């Protein structure tokens, strides 16, 4: 059933592309129906899959001569991420309700991207996974280049090239794994069971991890992320931060760690405490956490604050993955979901609710607008989203990051110590942005008062309220009752870490 999320998204994209121009309302309605249908299927699939392990949805030969199968399957990790994709898709459409320029094309690209993302999360053939992974590149480029803002063409091209270089690295690994497994198959399960030589895994793992990690915001390959997020239109930045970065993290987990587990083995020698690829990537993840947070602290553009915070939060995901402990990887997957929801929410508030009304994102200018009084909805929303982002208990971010930190402690205590610093800085930059944008102390001087009173902002519309509530609900439910997701994540992670993907 979950496979239909892919098909209806692509069908919706095709329909919107062929729709005659100038009927924006119809295009929006179609996009919303398609996204909502995908979300409904994702929920149903999640609910019906509870307690089950990996369920094969479809498995037919695709290119018989090369042993490539069209294999869609879902385990607990896939189901959680498909759920996240559905959520991001619906809220993304709702937050793009005001797009008037080339509306049908916008939603066509949007749904094509969503379809590719669903495909990656459901593919259990490495080849198929790669195909969907690349399908997602092109719509991103056009979404940013056509509907974006600040330096959009530069940001779009940078994002496209970074993604493509990453996927080129993945392709090299794919070709090599295909050639050296000798099993004449690219199924994830059969490759995992192919007993690839350790020497091969030793170089294939880092190449695959970096290849996917580029899209997950792995420091120092993260630089596409802030510029891309800032330039993208709201819905696209929600998708970029919400699900596209998760594609990378998912690839790191499913392909790099799942297929080449021996790549994480110690080298047998160490240099300054670094004795395996695991240490290398943990170090990069910790640097990403602290670096992203520090840079976010210094930004003057509201959206850049959120953009760099994404790099920091994705660092937790990557750190959780390389802990290789049950609790750490659980936390990483949960953090993927949590960050997808929270980052989506933050980008929506900054890019849609605030920017579309104030037409500036400079914190210095927002300071003089007294948004706390004039846009109380935005202020409330940002306070709650900011708390979730800081990792306060009761929100999903807390559970996720706590598990990552515990996992990191089990692996190497200093990882926890260092990334704890990142959390503290996280509180600082969120607080600073909150204070500057909404709750400034500075009172307006008499000459700053407009003569006809403060101009009214456009009222908050129903799509904005609906989507905000949807995302709030998600982060709160998971924060208060994390088992709802963890129950399906845990067995899947356990199976994956045990090897063989059985």
């Amino acid at each position, binding site marked *: 059933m979950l496979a239909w999320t892919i098909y209806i998204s692509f069908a919706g994209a095709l329909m919107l592309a062929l729709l005659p121009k100038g009927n924006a309302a119809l295009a929006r309605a179609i996009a919303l129906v398609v996204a909502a249908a995908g979300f409904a299927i994702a929920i149903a699939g999640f609910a019906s899959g509870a307690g089950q392990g990996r369920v094969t949805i479809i498995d037919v030969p695709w*290119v018989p001569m090369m042993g490539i199968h069209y294999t869609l399957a879902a385990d607990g990790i896939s189901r959680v991420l498909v759920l996240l994709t559905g959520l991001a898709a619906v809220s993304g459409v709702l937050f793009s309700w005001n797009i008037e320029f080339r509306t049908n094309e916008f939603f066509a690209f949007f749904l094509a991207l969503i379809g590719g993302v669903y495909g990656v999360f459901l593919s259990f053939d490495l080849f198929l996974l790669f195909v969907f992974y690349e*399908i997602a590149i092109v719509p991103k480029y056009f979404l940013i280049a*056509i509907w974006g803002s600040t330096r959009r063409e530069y940001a779009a091209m940078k994002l496209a090239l970074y993604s493509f270089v990453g996927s*080129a690295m993945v392709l*090299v690994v794919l*070709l090599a794994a*295909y050639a050296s497994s000798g099993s004449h198959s690219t199924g994830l399960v059969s490759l995992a069971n192919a007993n690839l030589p350790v020497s091969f895994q030793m170089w294939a793992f880092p190449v695959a991890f970096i290849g996917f990690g580029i899209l997950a915001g792995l420091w120092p390959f993260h630089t596409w992320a802030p510029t891309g997020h800032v330039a993208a239109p709201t819905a696209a930045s929600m998708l970029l931060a919400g699900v596209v970065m998760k594609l990378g993290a998912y690839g790191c987990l499913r392909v790099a760690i799942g297929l080449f587990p021996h790549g994480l083995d110690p080298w047998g020698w160490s240099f300054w405490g670094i004795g395996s690829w695991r240490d290398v990537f943990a170090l990069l993840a910790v640097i990403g956490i602290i670096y992203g947070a520090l840079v976010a602290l210094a930004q003057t553009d509201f959206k850049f604050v959120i953009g760099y915070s994404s790099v920091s939060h994705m660092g937790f995901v990557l750190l959780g993955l390389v802990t290789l402990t049950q609790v750490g990887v659980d936390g990483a997957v949960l953090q993927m979901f949590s960050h997808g929801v929270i980052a989506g929410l933050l980008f929506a508030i900054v890019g849609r609710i605030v920017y579309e009304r104030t037409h500036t994102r400079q914190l210095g200018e927002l300071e003089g607008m007294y948004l706390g009084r004039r846009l109380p909805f935005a202020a409330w929303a940002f306070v709650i989203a900011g708390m979730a982002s800081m990792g306060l208990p009761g929100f999903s971010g807390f559970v996720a990051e706590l598990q990552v930190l515990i996992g990191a402690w089990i692996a190497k205590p200093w990882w926890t110590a260092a990334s704890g610093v990142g959390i503290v800085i996280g509180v600082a930059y969120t607080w600073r942005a909150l204070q500057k944008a909404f709750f400034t102390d500075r009172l307006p001087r008499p000459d700053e008062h407009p003569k006809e009173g403060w101009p009214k902002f456009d009222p908050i519309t129903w799509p904005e309220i609906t989507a905000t509530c949807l995302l709030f609900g998600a982060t709160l439910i998971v924060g208060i009752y994390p088992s709802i997701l963890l129950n399906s994540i845990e067995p899947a992670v356990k199976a994956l870490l045990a090897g063989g993907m059985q």
Partner: protein
Amino acid sequence: MNYADLFRVTLSETALDIAALLVLVVDLGFLRKAALQIRVFSAVLIGVFGCAAAVAVMPFQAEGGLSYPGSTDLLLATGGYTAIAQVGILMLTVLTLFFLVGSDFTKHVGEFVSVTLMAATGGLLICSAQDLLVIFVGLELLSLGLYVLTAFAKRSGKSAESAMKYYLFGGMSAAFLLFGFSYLYGLTGSTNLHEIMRGLFAPAVLNSTPLLYVALVMIAAGLGFKVAAVPFHLWAPDTYQGAPAPAAAFIASVSKVASFALLIGISAAALHAMDQVHGAGLVTATLSGDAPRFMGFHWGWSTLMAILAVASMVFGNLAALAQDSVRRLLAYSAIAHAGYILLAIAYFSRSNVSANAILYYILTYGLTIIGAFGAVSVVERVNGSDRMDAFLGLYKRNGLLAGILLVLFLSLAGIPPLVGFWAKFNLFAAVLQVNRGATPFTLVAIAVAMSAVSLYYYLQVLKRVFVMPPSNATSVKGSPLAMGVLALITIAVIALGCLPGLMQSWMASFYAGM
């Protein structure tokens, strides 16, 4: 050997030549006073029927090809990769002919179609040729046709200039090729590929390997020119830019298919001879100790091909980054694509895996590039230029054409699920199947990295098509036939990409009887 046998293996070529003559008779004879449109239509129609007839008679060709009298060595091959390449050439020729309808660069349509068909005959011939003389005659037949086609836009100075450059380069490279061939003949005393390849293992030749290497370099130069491999590529950008669109599409597709089929033939013959010689124990009998690996044709040949491959894909992709003319961009990207394919020639397999991967690549590439040239020429006719800026805001001026360009260019860049991606994957997998060593692996990694570079320049064009606003609002209209053919090509590119097994099993069916 008698002429009846010769006739029986060259039925397709004969059909094409008859059609070529018929076109001339009809166009210059019966329709002399008719309107240009009718003449174009009838000429294209006859051309298409000629190609269809050539495909139709192919099953009646003598099975197993034509041998020398009293020998099992082939003179002309049939079936297998030869047949695939020949059918491919005929299909691509038909597609290029369609783009003649509605174009206005010449009034001499009869001659144009006739020369196209004759050049295609040359292409068919070199696909099956197993003899140096036949190869050379076929190559010249193809090349001379291409020079004429390039110069066909008589009102355009560019066309004449590019034809002259092409002709001079071509003449020189033919001289190189002939020089190399003469050394091979001198070393082995034969003009048959198989006999030469075996003869190169003879003790007398083993003592004169420098001569063999000179011959190899000369031949690589001559054939490198045909496939536009660096450093023999200099003609390509000018020709692609100056030639009339149908001619450029023909050069980029049909001529490439034929040349790569020839390279497949040579590589297969070299490997086959090596196996025969090793199997017969000849080498161990004539040499004490292990046979040095640089003996014979294969080692030097594959090294040269690998060098050409790397040079082409690196230089082609980097040079394409700097282009402002879309046709020149396509020319440099063609050089890069030739580089990828040469990699599979360098690591050639004894089974038909490599041959199939190469043909899959070059045929789908030919299909895509014909579509790309067709689309570019539609824009060019309206805007009078193929500069990047002529494509500004095309999505508004002709949405269908913009969509077609999107699909074709992304396929060239190798984005799945389009056919260009499968072709690349297939090709690189074939290379790694032949040899899993560090060197081929590095070369494949370079190729993959370079195809990441290529995305940049393809996106540069697509950016102008979709992202930037139009510079003027007049709509871009192509003739209905041209748009229909373009749409069909686009659908084929998508369908073959989604069902890659389709074409593979089609190709496998040609080997069924062998």
